[in-house]
């Protein structure tokens, strides 16, 4: 039942609004609202009960193993939330003067430094609000760089076919044309194809390494060389940074720009779809273009903002107030708890878990997409064999996993592997969770063989059975509306 359906005219959570009725008599009639908005009218208990019960209908890290590939669903330390919510942090207005902002600025400045160190980049801006915005900022900086050199012909961005959809979409937003580069059968970029693709029109390439197919591209140095020699720059999609934290740095691999998804690698909440934070790091030559604001520390040890006036070449402002500060704070807290040694452990154990799960699934007879390769922090299996044999597809497996109490891995991404599951267990899951997952996969395959309908009709144990996506798109209903004549 919707909260709107629990509404009764005149019901109120009275303690929550000013009790005294203030006058607003001098608002011109023509600019006033004629009819109250049809917001629900419920008591505070009703709202609390409704949303508490709704929350219970979610799978989440705090309740379930959630091996959603590419998303790094790992434990969000609770301290990050409570410390970022200290009254002193929550109360600060974004336009408060520096005299009253030293606490948060100290955290941001240290975070900039830690991110530089961890990525091997020369400078970092925390401004972008999420990964995709970091991508946009990143490719805009590539463009600004070429433009500043008068190199206006470089309008083509290379993007591997395995790339996340945000990569081509961001390149387009920055005014580039996108050219796809194929992935070789071993999972690495097809280097010959890449060499054919580069040229004077090449602005750069957007890569993630390890890539979205879950392997570390061994020819990264050759790729870098080839793109750089053609005059292009290398963009690093940091969504997979969890795999290499403290082990190998994008800057050392030859990347010129990187964005990081702090909501992945630095474990800030995914929040049912966000918020995130997508800081960008750059090599020295791109530094002038970083999005503002930046935090700097003066000789007096005090922190200062750098904004448009201080950074005339900046690509500018990505949001009104400098980004998702509360998320940056959570990432900072997490980073301080991990420390250098903890960061290295992140990638080590993420990789251990992925390789273990990969080995166990392989041993159980599931087909790996890249059987010859090490898994990074994630890996791909393809169920095309099962799909053919039992007429049960990957989505059916995914839905049936829900019945077994596991969130499904990412399905049908990347696009180049048919019937695939992209599986990312993360470092915070215990071995028992991985073993339980394997056991469930085995059971489901047995069901697929013996009782395919059970799998095809899944889920069975959740509040709802399988939902009709087609109906949702055909008979569009995206907002509750009051019945005619009411409200």
């Amino acid at each position, binding site marked *: 039942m919707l909260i709107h359906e629990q509404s009764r005219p005149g019901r109120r959570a009275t303690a929550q609004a000013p009790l005294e009725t203030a006058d607003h008599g001098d608002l011109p009639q023509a600019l006033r609202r004629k009819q109250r908005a049809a917001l629900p009218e419920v008591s505070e208990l009703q709202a609390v009960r409704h949303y508490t019960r709704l929350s219970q209908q979610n799978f989440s890290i705090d309740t379930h193993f959630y091996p959603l590939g590419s998303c790094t669903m790992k434990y969000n330390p609770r301290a990050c939330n409570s410390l970022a919510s200290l009254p002193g942090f929550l109360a600060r207005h974004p336009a408060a003067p520096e005299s009253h902002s030293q606490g948060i600025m100290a955290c941001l400045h240290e975070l900039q430094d830690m991110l530089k160190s*961890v990525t091997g980049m020369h400078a970092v801006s925390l401004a972008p609000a999420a990964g995709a915005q970091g991508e946009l900022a990143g490719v805009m900086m590539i463009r600004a760089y070429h433009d500043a050199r008068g190199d206006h012909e470089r309008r083509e961005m290379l993007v591997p076919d395995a790339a996340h959809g945000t990569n081509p979409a961001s390149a387009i937003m920055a005014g580039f044309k996108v050219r796809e580069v194929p992935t070789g059968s071993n999972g690495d970029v097809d280097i010959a194809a890449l060499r054919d693709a580069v040229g004077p029109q090449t602005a750069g390439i957007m890569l993630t390494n390890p890539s979205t197919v879950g392997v570390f591209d061994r020819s990264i140095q050759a790729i870098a060389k080839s793109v750089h020699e053609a005059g292009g720059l290398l963009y690093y999609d940091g969504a997979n940074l969890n795999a290499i934290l403290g082990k190998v740095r994008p800057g050392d691999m030859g990347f010129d720009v990187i964005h990081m998804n702090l909501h992945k690698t630095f474990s800030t909440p995914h929040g049912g779809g966000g918020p995130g934070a997508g800081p960008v790091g750059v090599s020295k030559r791109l530094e002038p273009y970083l999005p503002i604001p930046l935090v700097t520390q003066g000789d007096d040890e005090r922190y200062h903002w750098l904004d448009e006036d201080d950074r005339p070449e900046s690509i500018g402002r990505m949001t009104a107030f400098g980004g*998702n500060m509360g998320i940056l704070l959570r990432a900072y807290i997490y980073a301080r708890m991990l420390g250098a040694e903890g960061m290295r452990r992140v990638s080590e154990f993420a990789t251990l878990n992925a390789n273990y799960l990969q080995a166990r699934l392989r041993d159980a007879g599931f087909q790996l997409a890249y059987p010859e390769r090490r898994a990074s922090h994630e890996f791909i299996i393809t169920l095309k064999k099962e799909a053919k044999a039992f007429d049960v597809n990957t989505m059916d497996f995914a839905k049936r996993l829900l019945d077994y109490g596991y969130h499904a891995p990412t399905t049908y991404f990347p696009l180049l592997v048919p019937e695939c599951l992209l599986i990312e267990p993360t470092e915070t899951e215990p071995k028992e969770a991985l073993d339980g997952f394997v056991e469930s996969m085995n059971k489901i395959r047995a069901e697929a063989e013996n009782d395919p309908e059970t799998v095809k009709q899944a889920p069975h144990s959740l509040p709802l059975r399988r939902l009709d996506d087609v109906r949702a798109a055909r008979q569009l209903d995206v907002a509750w509306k009051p019945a005619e004549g009411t409200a």
Partner: protein
Amino acid sequence: MPFIPHTDEDITGMLDVIGVDSIDALFDEIPKELRAKELAGVPSGLSEMEVTQLLQARARIDGEPTCFIGAGAYDHHIPAAVWQITTRGEFYSAYTPYQAEASQGTLQVLYEFQSMMTALTGLDVSNASLYDGASALAEAVLMAVRANRKVKTTRVLMPRSVHPFYRRTVRSIVQHQGIDLVEVDFDTETGQTTLAHCETAGDEPFAALVVPQPNVFGVLEDVNALTDWAQSRDALVIGVVNPVALALLSPPGDWGQNGADIACGEGQPLGMPLASGGPYLGFLCCQQAFIRQLPGRIAGKTEDVDGKVGYTLTLQAREQHIRRSKATSNICTNQGLLVTAATVHMAILGAEGLERVAAACLANTDRLAQQLCEVPGVEPIFEAPAFHERALRLPAPTEDVLAALAEQDILGGFDLGREYPELGCALLVCATERRTDAEIAAYREALASTLAIAEAA
């Protein structure tokens, strides 16, 4: 090992299964010469206790100033229930609801949010959030250019009475997509964008007119006239609105003859703490006709195989993960958790509660402006009716006055003069429902003595 559950026995057993003898061996595909050394810039790990002590000190260091700044972020009361519910693990630590059956909580919240936003804006459909108000405006501009089938142009009229940070953000984001942002000036008497000013943009067609309500000065624009004017020229109208103000003000869907086409804005006043600027929440609503041009996620109602009502992400073919380079936007991660907060907030306040908040802010800011204008040399800049901000002219440089006030732990407002030099020593002040009479009186006193000293000097 913080946050890592592996015992020594686990590690050995797992390596055995994999068939390697050390974790390091798992990284053997990475060229040796690339392997990272020490992370010099990262200090060693702290325990939660130590990090708590550190952060508590940081949170304390800046004192507890009284805030009279608005300018796009507002210090409203947030019911305690809002964040106690929002930070429940099931909301906080879930991802985008790709497996609808396992995410009905999030999905229904999105649907309810969309319903509430359409109710507030008077438009047909809403997406499930963008990053913030400014980037939402950028998306609205791009969307309007795509959606306007009547005129094929990339010109968009952008009043200077739109918040300067919004205008800059729009410029950053759209600059490489050939959009031509045409600035429209405002009347320095009233602070309003008049039709006359709009006309100066010339006769060439334009795809859309942006209409802020209230505008950055707090001043109410004549939205009906502006809407009719733009639509009569085949342009779309994009309202940039404050959702709390909408409890009192005519919703974009009601503007002019036909209503605005698109409305966007900052959701922060709906239950988000100031928190230095984020995470907040951009919202974007539009008329039904434009839904396929709407960027961002949308939750839709549907049924399961038994006919039970449920919710799912819909129209995903607009999005980057399906449409890739042809998507309506690159946005992926949005501001889901803030949507949850806003939804709970609106459910608890209801329309009447929001109206009370809006009215109290209005009354408080009136009182503040009145009292400050009793200080010699301080005067209102504009005449037109305003919502909960006021532009005041000071008899001394705004920057100096603000610095002096800050020393007394009063954050006196937003320095308008820096953005609008033509207004002179201009200050934008705001008093939400949380500001008390005593705080307002203290501000007045502090301003009076500050200005007296300035004059004496």
